[in-house]
């Protein structure tokens, strides 16, 4: 679906991504993991077209429609329903999408007055209104309580089962185990390992992956 070839991104003297090559194919969720500063957000922003790489190439087969949920999504100063309606591509699926994320009761409330968990689910509904083939989620549960995290993960599973390719970043290994079909480990802007989830967690192929799983790869 999308292939990164020798992708490098820099900001001043700092290298955010270092000659990263990776192919993301259709199928179950791809979960990008790594410690803080590994380059997860940079990779997703480049994949979305929000950031230009310094060098390298991105090949998108058929230019699939993309959408993203940011770690701290911005709610438009409108109601919950109006936020989804604003992003709608084609037919208005506002009611269906609000039901999917469990927010039909809050349709007429000001979006900015929702809780963090509700705002995150609204951002997901809004992204789905774009009818994407690939959905990028940047640490979608990073600031959520356990109940909100579970609600978010349930929706992500449903979305994935409906055939939308989910590519999400997280630094939560538990979440990666629960959701990932494929795991991509980044460290200091480099691709360390990309493997099927079961394979990655049962038999990590690199010392860095073993250290990360053991909680010893902090930065």
């Amino acid at each position, binding site marked *: 679906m999308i292939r990164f070839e020798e992708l490098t991104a820099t900001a001043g003297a700092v290298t955010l991504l270092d000659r990263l090559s990776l192919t993301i194919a259709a199928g179950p969720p791809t979960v990008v993991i790594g410690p803080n500063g590994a380059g997860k957000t940079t990779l997703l922003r480049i994949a979305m077209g929000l950031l230009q790489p310094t060098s390298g190439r991105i090949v998108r087969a058929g230019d699939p429609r993309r959408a993203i949920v940011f770690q701290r999504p911005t709610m438009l100063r409108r*109601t919950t329903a109006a936020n989804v309606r604003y992003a709608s591509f084609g037919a208005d699926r506002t009611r269906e999408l609000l039901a999917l994320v469990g927010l039909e009761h809050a349709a007429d409330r*000001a979006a900015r007055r929702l809780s963090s968990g509700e705002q995150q689910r609204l951002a997901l509904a809004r992204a789905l209104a774009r009818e994407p083939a690939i959905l990028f989620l940047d640490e979608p549960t990073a600031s959520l309580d356990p109940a909100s995290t579970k609600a978010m993960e349930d929706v992500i599973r449903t979305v994935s089962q409906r055939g939308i390719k989910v590519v999400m970043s997280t630094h939560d290994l538990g979440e990666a185990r629960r959701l990932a079909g494929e795991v991509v480990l980044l460290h200091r802007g480099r691709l360390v390992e990309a493997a099927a989830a079961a394979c990655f967690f049962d038999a990590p192929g690199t010392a860095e992956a073993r250290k990360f799983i053991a909680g010893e790869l902090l930065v």
Partner: protein
Amino acid sequence: MPENLSALDLVLTGDPALFAIVRLALIVSLSAVLLAALVGVPLGAAIALSSFRGRDAVIVFLNAMMGLPPVVIGLMVYLALSRSGPLGSWGLLFTPQAMVIAQTILVTPIIAALARQTIEDLWLEYRDELTAMEVGPLRRLATLVWDARFSLITALLAGFGRAAAEVGAVIIVGGNIEGFTRTMTTAIALETSKGNLPLAIGLGLVLIAIVLAVNALAWALRRAAERLAG
């Protein structure tokens, strides 16, 4: 004190001369704010969303224009509308229309500069989301103006405050003609100079009451709207 009581009497009894002045002043100031908003908000939004060489200089110029002395504006409009001026054939000098033109020129930079700042701040907040949604330039502009509408009320209020309070421009281009171009501020200046303090104080009370009422209404509107739309 007796003067204050007389002033209050004029207000409470609905003195026709006083309310004719109030009516004209409101028509002139509100028309100027409306016209300035039609120009200033899109202009501010366009500057907020565009990048071009000299943008910083334009912003500095716009901000500086907020402090334009009303008498200078009055003089410029007077020269333009006077019989020998480029727009002299319009025959607008010493008419309420001339006063609206002068106040519009005075208020437009205030609304444009405040709108530019408000919309630019909101754009920084919305940029990633709207870019990710592939929102085009025109829809982006409309979205930002619409979502900033409650903050933009503050810009309109600042413009109205400036228009309602100024005396220099309207007295030059309006001429302070009784029953035709006499507004609250020009009448206050004239009546004070004549020693007719009850009317001057009465007009002052009305002017303060109007400014308070407009601000209270805008505040209530903003609070109610924020509850509904965030």
